[in-house]
């Protein structure tokens, strides 16, 4: 029996005596547990629960560092009337959509190849993990240089005589957003790759052996056996990708600050960030944050519901 079962209320328990506990003894018996949990909860309250409630409350106020004035739905009215909001959500939808396609293709291809390669599998794996270790800011910084007017891409284009294609990739409204989406191409090296690889490697040998005896080709084995077996990981990664790109804004912040123009590569997270940094309008920022949180929560709950339904039908 588990110790946790044993020390259930009213049952004899070690090490705090074997009699039914009185109130004082109850405090002595359990107090220690609460005391040990206290630091965790202190931080959870200070940096999760309080900010969450404060953000929701202040989204209905005018809020700067000095004062708070109740303004009802003004921030939300302003947010929904602001053309920048629509542009930000449109940009974000494009990024999320593209990354959904990316996560189901390139890292999976990389993982499948590394899983099936016979020579140097270990080193291939290390090679595709290594770039994850390089801080994202450094990666974005290098890509920013590549996209520059005198950057790597234009240099290569000039080198092969395609001068007319050169441009300021991040300054041109036609290419800026796509340039940001393309950061990290071919998107193999990453956490997604690791998850796919772990999933592929955990497929039991017997399943694959059966297919081999039947004389199935490698490609058929992949599509008919391996792919269906890692479907849970695919849907998990799809979900995590959606949630991640709904809120992330480091690349636009570092590369374009939301430009060209005011909304070329603006996303909701960056819109929120700018409401603090540029305008110190914390109430407006809170409204964006609250909206973003609501959407994220809805997506997470939808995901849970879908998964539960899938489990029932299977």
């Amino acid at each position, binding site marked *: *029996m588990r*110790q*946790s*079962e044993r*020390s259930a*209320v009213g049952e004899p328990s070690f*090490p705090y005596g074997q009699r039914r506990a009185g109130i004082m003894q109850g405090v002595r*018996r359990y107090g220690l*547990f609460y005391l*040990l949990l206290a630091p*965790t*909860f202190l*931080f*959870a309250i200070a*940096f*999760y629960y*309080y*900010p*969450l409630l404060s953000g929701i409350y202040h989204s209905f106020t005018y809020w700067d560092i000095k004062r708070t004035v109740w303004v009802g739905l003004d921030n939300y009215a302003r947010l929904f009337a602001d053309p920048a909001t629509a542009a930000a959500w449109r940009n974000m939808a494009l990024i999320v959509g593209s990354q959904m396609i990316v996560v189901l293709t390139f890292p999976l291809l990389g993982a499948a*190849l590394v899983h*099936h*390669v016979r*020579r140097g599998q270990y080193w*291939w794996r290390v090679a595709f*993990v290594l*770039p994850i*270790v*390089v*801080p*994202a*800011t*450094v990666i974005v*910084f*290098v890509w920013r240089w*590549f996209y520059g007017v*005198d950057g*790597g891409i234009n*240099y290569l284009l000039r080198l092969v005589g395609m001068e007319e294609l050169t441009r300021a990739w991040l300054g041109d409204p036609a290419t800026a957003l796509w340039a940001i989406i393309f950061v990290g191409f*071919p998107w*193999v*090296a990453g956490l997604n790759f*690791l*998850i796919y690889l772990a999933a592929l490697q955990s497929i039991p040998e017997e399943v694959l052996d059966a297919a081999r005896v039947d004389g199935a080709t*490698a490609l058929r084995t992949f599509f008919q056996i391996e792919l269906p077996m890692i479907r849970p990981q695919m849907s998990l990664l799809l979900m995590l990708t959606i949630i*991640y790109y709904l*809120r992330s*804004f*480091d690349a636009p*912040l570092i590369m374009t600050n939301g430009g060209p123009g005011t909304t070329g590569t603006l996303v909701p*997270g960056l819109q*929120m*960030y700018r409401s603090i*940094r540029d305008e110190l309008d*914390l109430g407006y*920022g*809170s409204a964006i*944050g609250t909206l*973003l*949180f609501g959407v*994220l929560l809805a997506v997470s709950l939808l995901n849970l519901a879908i998964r539960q339904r899938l489990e029932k039908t299977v």
Partner: protein
Amino acid sequence: MKRLHRRAGQWVIQLVLLMLAFITFAPLVTLLSLSVKDIYQFNVAPMGLTFPMRFENYTLAWKFMAEPIWHNILVATVATLASLSMASISAFVFARFRFPGRDLLFFAIMILLFIPNTVLLVPTYQLIISFSLQNTLWALILPYCALQALAIVVLRTFFLEMPDELFDAAIVDGASVVQQFTAIAAPLAKPVIGAMAIFQVWVIWNDYAWPSLVANAPQARTAALALIVFNDFTMPAPGAGMAAGVLAALPMLVLFFATMRTFIAGLTAGAIKG
């Protein structure tokens, strides 16, 4: 015939992997090569190696980056040690003991996984400002200490799976809760705690938006931030700017090669949460 077929397949795999790796590493290799160019080499031949290599770029970059990198190491170490100490003892209490409200409290921790820090940016910023912690390292350390939910959930599962027999002798000897944790549970959980710690360090090292809001002054600047400030505001020789990028990445690379297995385990565990 079939063997020939399979061997050809292996060649194709190697070739595609080689291509993918080439494109993956091209930007990083370019960063390295740019970091040793003087301004003339930088403008005329940005791709590929040029000689002589200008290692003095690194001297210049180091002057700007040394302090921020030290800030990063300090913040990541202190915050990770603190958050994992709190998280692992909480996970132990959640896993091995029963007390009123336990499941509710654990649920309260679990739902933190669904609250991305990004959406709390504004109120957390106000919190830091109202305690006048902006532009101190505390503005980074304190919020990072709150990153505990994932470690608690992972470690709780680990502690739940430990057999009771491990603890029986200690309990008979009258070992306290804390003694059971420090003498038995924690040592066995070391690999898991290590993996979570590395994931934490990685997350902290990668953060850009939060430090750029509350720690954008020389006395608290982190490496990622300093890299951008160095390049965009101090207008160094372009090669030195690139050298700063290499320097910002270096400590994590060292950590990776020193703890490869744990590092990969930590990333994999952390990735599931995202």
